[in-house]
């Protein structure tokens, strides 16, 4: 039985190995290979010696962290608010959260240029209100990149969080109230701990996605906010220095896998 099942998926497996896994392995291997020399760690040494690489890596981590934090600060209250809605309003809210999934990420990112640009909606509103004299530059800096990433990734946090919140029985909060707990205690001792696994899982997922983000930093950063994926683009398409690129990719992959392992553990706890 097992062998017949295997023969069914074998062609697919061959395709996967040759089309996806081998190129990845080849790419990872490049980082440890030097022409004429064989195995080497010199590309990693190169990374350490040229501080720009580590700076970009650190930069990426920081922006990812801020965007993730912004996501949590917006996403948690949003999911909680959705939980309290009546059926119809809730459906509309879910649709509004999911809607961005159906719009191309390029369109959404360019939309931010319209909103945040010097002559954009936000700046015109600020100047009309007299809050600023000159336009605030939201674009082509870290702020724009962070706003754009937070927006694009919001559904990845809100949906699992909402799913966890909706599973919490209202009677648990009522029980806590009947046992004498004030609203603050009910939130921190009962409600929040029950959403924590989903919150942690969603946060890690968003963080991982932030790390590898390309389109939004490229457009909203205008080439002035270097993140890992944009650096890789330069190293591969422009310079090109494939070995350096693969060394960076290897580091990014390891970091991502570590975070993903943590995510899996939390996710299993969340669904238990």
């Amino acid at each position, binding site marked *: 039985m097992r062998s017949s099942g295997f023969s069914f998926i074998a062609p697919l497996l061959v395709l996967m190995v040759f089309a996806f896994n081998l190129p990845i392995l080849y790419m990872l291997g490049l980082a440890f290979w030097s022409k004429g020399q064989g195995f080497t760690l010199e590309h990693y040494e190169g990374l350490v010696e040229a501080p720009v690489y580590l700076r970009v890596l650190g930069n990426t981590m920081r922006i990812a962290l801020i965007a993730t934090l912004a996501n949590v600060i917006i996403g948690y209250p949003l999911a909680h608010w959705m939980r309290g809605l009546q059926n119809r309003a809730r459906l509309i809210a879910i649709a509004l959260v999911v809607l961005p999934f159906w719009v191309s990420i390029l369109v959404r990112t360019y939309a931010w240029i319209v909103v945040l640009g010097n002559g954009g909606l936000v700046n015109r509103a600020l100047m009309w209100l007299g809050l600023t004299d000159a336009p605030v530059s939201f674009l082509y800096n870290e702020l724009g990149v962070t706003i754009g990433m937070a927006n694009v990734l919001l559904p990845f946090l809100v949906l699992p969080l909402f799913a966890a919140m909706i599973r919490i*029985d209202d*009677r*648990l909060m*009522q*029980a*806590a*109230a*009947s*046992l*004498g*707990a*004030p609203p603050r*205690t009910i939130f921190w*001792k*009962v409600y929040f*701990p*029950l959403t924590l696994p989903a919150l942690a899982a969603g946060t890690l997922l968003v963080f991982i996605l932030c790390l590898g983000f390309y389109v939004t930093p490229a457009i909203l950063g205008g080439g002035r906010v270097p993140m890992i994926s944009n650096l890789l683009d330069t190293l591969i398409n422009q310079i090109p220095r494939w070995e350096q690129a693969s060394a960076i990719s290897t580091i990014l992959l390891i970091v991502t896998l570590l975070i993903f392992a943590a995510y899996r553990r939390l996710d299993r706890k969340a669904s238990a």
Partner: protein
Amino acid sequence: MSDIRLEGVTKRYGPVAAADDVDLSVAQGEFVTILGPSGSGKTTLLSLIAGLNRPTAGRIFIGGRDVTEATAQERNIGLVFQSYALFPHMTVLENVLFPLGVRKIGGAAARSQALEALKLVRLDGLEGRRPSQLSGGQQQRVALARAIVFKPDILLLDEPLGALDRKLREELQVELKQLQRTLGVTTLLVTHDQEEALSLSDRIMVLNHGKTQQVAAPAEAYLKPANRFVAEFLGIANFVGLDGGRTGLVRPERVRLGPGGVNGGRPARVIEAIYLGQMVRYHLAIEGSEGAPIVAAVPFVGRAWQAGESVAVSWDAADIWPVT
């Protein structure tokens, strides 16, 4: 310890009155059961007393204090939910410690108080478990321990035994009654099971469509129901015609059976004889009567009548209760 008084308590959900002008007094230390079919407003009434809900009209007094506008946390009430509502992310002990922590009782004092409550409900040794690792009966006891650990003024129980199987339910009924007597806490229990209501309580309040039907001691409600609904809800009811077109109630235990042809009894035929252990229940068709069969419950002593046999049926005039 406190008494409870409801005055004209009404709760409307749109056109539905889940509680409709309910008056009730529960004395200090008394055990009162609210009995009614599903949807009659029992849970609504408890949630109003617990402060999880505000009445549309009427006033609620606990220990003489008007608490109608007080929040749940200001009322010091122990409430056991129909679904137990244990905190799934806490252990048994943490669940029982929760109301103490809220009251700023901590450390060894809280711990020993919690363990004592768990001992009262015979759960000692399970304090490290999660609710999901317990059986239904054990979860029920945790909910009970959590509701009594902080020495509440009153204890409210919403169908606490409803989800358990029969044997366990009967065991826990006895325990609950003993526990209530030990603590001397004013208790209001809600159930749709009339046997539970009759066996546990000092008094019962029968509820239907949010309206009080009767408040009385169990035996009185059973034998002298205020109306037809109470008569039928509390057990098997035989309705017999009385002079002047009125209707009378005769309970099955009050119906006497004798051999057919004996003077003084109405001739009847046995339709069905159901053996119940100590008792046999007969369904009897009175000869010349078109009405519903008469049900008799007779102690089983050696021999039972068989279906199809002719018997004589009689009851004392004193055992008839007129109902409207």
